[in-house]
């Protein structure tokens, strides 16, 4: 059943991505001020949205683990956080390249970039911590604590770095302020978000299956030792 869902989602995501690519590269004109480079937005924004909501979801799942003590929550939290970290990396990398071309620097010490990097580091630490603990229940407990504290801390960092001068453009999406983009240009962002979300769902499902494998290996090892 799970295999079928994964394959179905993969076909859907691939089709949607191909269609989006077609729209982005052949249908849409270059942007007035930035030229061709603005097309990075179709990956930059969805990847960051996915990364951010993934970290938030990871925190909720970690709380879920702490409340229920059910290891499946922990496995799901770990999978979601790891996939989110990949999307956060994509967001950072595309952002950096975009900044190089438009602002002339690889990295601007703007509050959103900086706090996003802090967030990236925190959850990178989360994954490193998971590797350093062998005992599954202890690992789940520690990871959940780090996830909750990390998310709270990431939000506080975001707010505190906001004092600094900022160079990043204000939000251009219509959900925030009624839209600063031409109508035809915004829609592909949301379609791409959907496609990448499907893609990340696939990744999370694969990761979940791996967590199940790891748990099974662990149980079998224990049995082997008990014999």
């Amino acid at each position, binding site marked *: 059943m799970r295999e079928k869902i994964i394959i179905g989602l993969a076909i859907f995501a691939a089709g949607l991505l191909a269609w989006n690519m077609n729209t982005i590269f052949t249908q849409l004109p270059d942007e007035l001020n930035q030229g061709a480079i603005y097309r990075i937005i179709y990956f930059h924004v969805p990847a960051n949205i996915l990364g951010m909501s993934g970290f938030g979801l990871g925190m909720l799942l970690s709380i879920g683990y*702490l409340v229920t003590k059910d290891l499946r929550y922990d496995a799901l939290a770990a999978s979601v956080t790891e996939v989110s970290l990949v999307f956060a990396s994509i967001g950072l990398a595309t952002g950096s390249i975009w900044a190089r071309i438009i602002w002339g620097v690889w990295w601007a010490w703007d509050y959103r970039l900086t706090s996003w990097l*802090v967030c990236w*580091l*925190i959850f990178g*630490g989360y994954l*490193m*911590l998971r590797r*350093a*603990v062998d005992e599954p*229940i*202890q690992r789940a*407990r*520690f990871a*959940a*604590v*780090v996830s*909750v*504290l*990390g998310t*709270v*801390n990431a939000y*506080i*960092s975001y*707010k*505190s*770095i906001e*004092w600094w001068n900022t160079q990043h453009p204000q939000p251009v999406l219509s959900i925030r302020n009624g839209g600063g983009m031409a109508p035809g240009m915004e829609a592909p962002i949301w379609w791409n978000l959907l496609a990448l979300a499907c893609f990340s769902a696939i990744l999370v499902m694969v990761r979940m299956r791996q967590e199940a494998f790891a748990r099974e290996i662990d149980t079998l090892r224990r049995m082997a030792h008990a014999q």
Partner: protein
Amino acid sequence: MFLRQVWTVAAKDLHSELRTKEAWNASIAFSVVILLLFAFAFDPSSEQIREFGSGLLWMTYAFAGALVLNRSFARELQNDCLDALIASPVSSAALFVGKALANFTMLFAVELFSLPVFGLFYNTWPPRFAPLFLVMVLGTWALTIIGTLFSALTVNLRLRELMLPTLVYPMMIPVLIAAMTITTNVLAGNPMGFGMRFLVAFDIIFTLLAVVFVDTVLVG
């Protein structure tokens, strides 16, 4: 009752530290070395030192803090003292607050020592003491509360000495930003700004979070 337990744990930690002075000697020496190294990274005689001097100061504190914090729970590993402490009637919250208090005292002592060294090297002596101490108390409490929790979390891990800094420094960033900005203002003779309220709020939030989570970390 709670306060007495806290006091017992803190006194025990300070007592054993006073006997060996391992962490103190190491982190005081370390902070002086760091302050010396920074002098080669920047021109210490320039006027700009007033602007980024506070950054150096707080980075020194954060680095020196890691040495103190690393020892905090690791000290209990010998002879299974940690298990004994957890099994004792002292609640894990009291154990944690006591440890945090001891760490705070130690780190603050190290800071008091390295502050005049900083003032001498970077020509910022004498600062305005009253506001500076206020920032140092609030900032150091925030550093220790985060650090002590993560010290408890990493104590049984492989690579403890590596895991603690990688986890703890990103978490300390908001505190360090706030403390650095306020200290810059203090050194330049400006009003402190609203960073003070931020530090107080951060202290309260993270003390509460840490006390809530410490049972999960230590006992499960």
